[in-house]
C-alpha cells in the first residue's frame, strides 16, 4: 500500500452520526456539515477503523469476508484514503501517519 503502511492503525472521529440503510449507511459529519453515503464494503472498513484495526487487518478481514483469492490491497487502500481525506477516520496516535 503506497502511503498507508499495513501496520497503520485507524480510529473513529468524534461528531460523526451513522445511520444504517438497506444498502449501506448515511454518515453525517457535524463539524464539516457534510453527509456521506457508504456502501456496505466501505461501511465495514469504516467500522473496522473504529475498532483500531490496522490496514493489514482490515485487508485480511475483507478478503476473508468476501472469500477473495487475491488480497484487495488497492481497493482497501483506496477506501481508507477516501475515509481519511473526508475526515471520517484518522490515523491512530500510535500509528505512523500515511
Amino acid at each position, binding site marked *: 500500500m503506497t502511503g498507508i503502511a499495513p501496520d497503520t492503525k485507524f480510529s473513529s472521529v468524534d461528531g460523526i*452520526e*451513522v*445511520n*444504517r*440503510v*438497506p*444498502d*449501506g*449507511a*448515511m*454518515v*453525517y459529519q457535524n463539524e464539516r456539515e457534510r*453527509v456521506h*453515503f457508504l456502501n456496505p464494503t466501505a461501511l465495514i472498513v469504516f467500522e473496522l477503523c473504529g475498532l483500531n484495526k490496522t490496514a493489514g487487518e482490515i485487508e485480511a478481514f475483507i478478503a476473508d469476508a468476501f472469500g477473495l483469492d487475491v488480497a484487495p490491497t488497492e481497493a482497501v487502500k483506496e477506501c481508507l484514503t477516501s475515509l481519511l481525506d473526508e475526515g471520517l477516520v484518522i490515523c491512530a496516535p500510535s500509528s505512523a501517519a500515511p
Partner: protein
Amino acid sequence: MRPIVCRTLRREYRLHPPSDEVASLLRFVEAAPELPALPLEVLDIPVRFRDGFLVATMPSGELVEGTPNHLVSAMHRIVLVDLIEGERHTPFIHGATVMIGSRRILLVGHKGSGKSTLALHLSLAGHDVEGDEHLVIRESEVVARPRTLRIKEGSLRLVPGLPEHIWEAPSINNWDGSVIRSISPTIGGRPWVIRPGNLDAVVLLVANHGGRSVARPITGKDAFGRLMTEVLLPQGGVAIAAGRLRRIAMEVPAYQLLLGDLATAEWHLSSIASQLT
C-alpha cells in the same frame, strides 16, 4: 367575518382581520385542507389597526406590526417553524404531492421547473393535489405539508382551460412587481384532503418549456443524488434523516419527466401510476 384559516400538521391558526379589505390581502396564507387523521390545536391570532399599520398578536404573545405583506411573511415563518418543531429529525423534500388514482406521486423540481403549474393542471384535470411545497418524510409514512399552489400570473396563462374565478384567487406582489396567486387545490372541484400514507413514486422534473413532455425511469442512486439537492435536513439527526431519504430513493420507483406540454405530462403520470404494483 370568517377567520382566515392556516393549518399546519398539528395546528390551526385563525387570523381575525379587522376589515374585509385586510382579509382579502391576508387570505394569501390561507390553507384549509381536511386533515382527517390529524387532531389540530386551534390558535387564534387577532389582528387590529394601529397608526395605519396592522398589529397581530401571535400565540406566543409576540406582536407583529407592519403592512399586510409583512404579516403574510410573518405567518410564513410561523408555519414553517411549526412544521420543523413538530417533525423533529425529519427531512422535508421540496415538491408537490399529487394523488393519481390511488397512487401518491411526488413531483420534485427546481424553482421554475413548472412543478406548481403542473400541479394546477392536474388539479383542474380532476386529480387530488395534497400539497405544493414540502413532503414530510416520517419513519414509516409521508405526509404533505398543507400549502396552496403559488403561481406567478405569467405562468398561469400557460395553463389551458382555467376557470374564470382563478383570477380572484388571493395574490401578493413579488419583489420584481410580478403577481403571485395563491390557488387552493380545490380549484378543480375536488376536496382538499391530506392523509399520511405511503409514497408510490417520485418524479423529478426537468424544465422543457415549449417542448413535449417525456418520461423515463431512473435509478435509485440517481434519484437519491437529485433528492439531496431538494431536501431540507433537520438540525439534529442528520444521518437518520438522510437515511430516510436514501430508503425512499432506493425503494420507491423514480422517474425523470422532461416537463413540456401539460397534457402529455399528465398522460405520463397516469401511465406511471397505472404501472405501479
